[in-house]
């Protein structure tokens, strides 16, 4: 009896997770994809009109707000790449100097513990046109200083990028730091003996050795960029106008403000497609690199 039970127990123990995955993830994704081909509005309507199955996607393609969302996704993605660069510079300096490592690490990483809503609210206050940092700069006598980024459609995205850099750079610093620490310390002395300059050492030896860490960072960054929502709600709520809309905000707005389930589903499917389009190539690159490294070791 005991043996039989223990043979079945693992399967029974796995049942909740399997059911949740099947229903909440696979089933739900399938449902959303299906609904995106229908004409559902407030309530799901499962009939697909064979001639107009793609109408939600056609509507998306014509929707100016969706176009803005995609443009902003690219701007935000490129801007957020700075977090990786900044994180690497911070990590390299901390690693090199070693003095004060714990203090600096603690300071650079604390924004990550804070809710993005709080981060957004705090930065919104700093960007306040009449009472914020801009006013302070004016009082210092720098009359032409402009730090009122959120109230103009041209600069609002940069304000959001700055706040999100503040929030996430520490995370990439932490990943880079553990990557740097796994590098054999003999490289440093070898490089010194060979008279290789510090800058060349980083560009030609250290960074190529940290390919994995950079790939991991890129994957995590891209996922975060596609998901960006809270910080926009807290800082601009999409405004001024629709200038800071992003796909996540668009999708939720299509559901909650427009009450259009099919349209929101189509936008959500596009988000999934974008995620996969960025994520899968990076993942394949990651696996390929891993295979190559394993082959090199063997």
């Amino acid at each position, binding site marked *: 009896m*005991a043996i039989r039970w223990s043979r079945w127990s693992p399967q029974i123990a796995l049942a909740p997770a399997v059911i949740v*995955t099947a229903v909440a993830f696979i089933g739900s994704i399938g449902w959303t994809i299906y609904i995106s081909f229908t004409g559902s509005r407030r309530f799901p309507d499962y009939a697909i009109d064979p001639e107009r199955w793609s109408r939600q996607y056609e509507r998306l393609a014509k929707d100016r707000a969706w176009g803005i969302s995609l443009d902003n996704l690219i701007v935000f993605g490129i801007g957020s790449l700075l977090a990786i660069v900044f994180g690497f510079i911070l990590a390299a300096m901390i690693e090199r100097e070693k003095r004060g490592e714990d203090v600096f690490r603690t300071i650079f*990483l604390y924004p990550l513990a804070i809710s993005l809503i709080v981060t957004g609210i705090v930065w919104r206050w700093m960007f306040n046109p009449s009472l914020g940092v801009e006013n302070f700069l004016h009082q210092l006598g720098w009359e032409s200083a402009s730090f009122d980024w959120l109230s103009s459609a041209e600069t609002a995205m940069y304000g959001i990028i700055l706040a999100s850099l503040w929030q996430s750079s520490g995370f990439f610093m932490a990943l880079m730091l553990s990557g740097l620490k796994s590098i054999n310390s003999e490289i440093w002395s070898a490089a010194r003996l060979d008279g290789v300059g510090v800058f060349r050492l980083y560009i030609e030896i250290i960074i190529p050795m940290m390919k994995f860490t950079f790939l991991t960072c890129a994957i995590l960054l891209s996922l975060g960029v596609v998901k960006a929502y809270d910080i926009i709600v807290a800082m601009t709520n999409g405004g001024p106008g629709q200038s800071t809309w992003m796909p996540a905000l668009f999708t939720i707005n299509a559901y909650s403000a427009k009450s259009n389930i099919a349209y929101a589903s189509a936008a959500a499917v596009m988000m999934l497609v974008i995620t996969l389009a960025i994520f899968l190539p990076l993942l394949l690159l990651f696996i390929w690199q891993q295979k190559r490294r394993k082959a090199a070791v063997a």
Partner: protein
Amino acid sequence: MSTMTDNFVPRRKKRITGRSIAILAFLAMCAAFFCIPLYVVIVTSFKTMDQIRLGEIFSLPVTWTLEPWREAWSEACSGIKCEGVSAGFFASLKILFPSLILSLSVSSVTGYALALWNVRWAGTFMFILFMCAFVPFQIIMIPMIILTGKIGVYGTIWGVAVVHAVLALPILTLIFRNFYKDIPGEIMQAAIMDSGSFWRIYREIILPMSANIFIVVLILQITSIWNDFLIGITFGGLNNKPMTVILANTVISATGESSYNVDMAAALLTAIPPLLIYFVLGKFFVQGITAGAIKG
């Protein structure tokens, strides 16, 4: 974990060189960039509105006042309700506990079964979990709203808690599985020979070994649930809004002149619990956010 051992390697005393000074100066400037927002929020929350209207965002309060904090906690208006962020604080706590119990129990047992027991389809299942960990929430949002509505938990504390547990399941399971797979096979062999059943081995051998990973996952979950906004606003309904949602309503949709000092006090009140965890248990926090990421 390698970082922990590295810290204890004794290093030679270095002379302060010009390069060291340049690096330290740069790092200090960056540290200032990271600290300025926190400084600004703290001083603003202790100022009177009269002083704030002068527009000196970096100056210290002339008269320190706790009034904004009191108002933020118990009076500030969020929508039509004026009960401060305290309501959100207690709602967040109520969401936290069931959600933690659900997600930790299911994902640790699942991770244990996948790592140490012979399940033929474990590889396939782990790959599916891995993919699920990365899908954007929006793709499952609407069906989850309908599903939670059908089982009658939509708009309740349980609805928010269950959705948190569901969303965390893939990544937490993988973290647990990665931890348990390093348990030596001999221990498992001996335990099975000793007529240990699945659950007995879990209770008597695995759980006592898992204190470290449980703390890491616990902290990861506490901070991410506490800081969540989207799930709370989508599934909490009108009466179970977590603290971040109340905060956002208070600050963003306020009409008339904003009381910036109250806003900042409310923001700080929301940020204090995770910040406390971070400053007290930082090592575990860092392990948590990197564990799911790197090992994947």
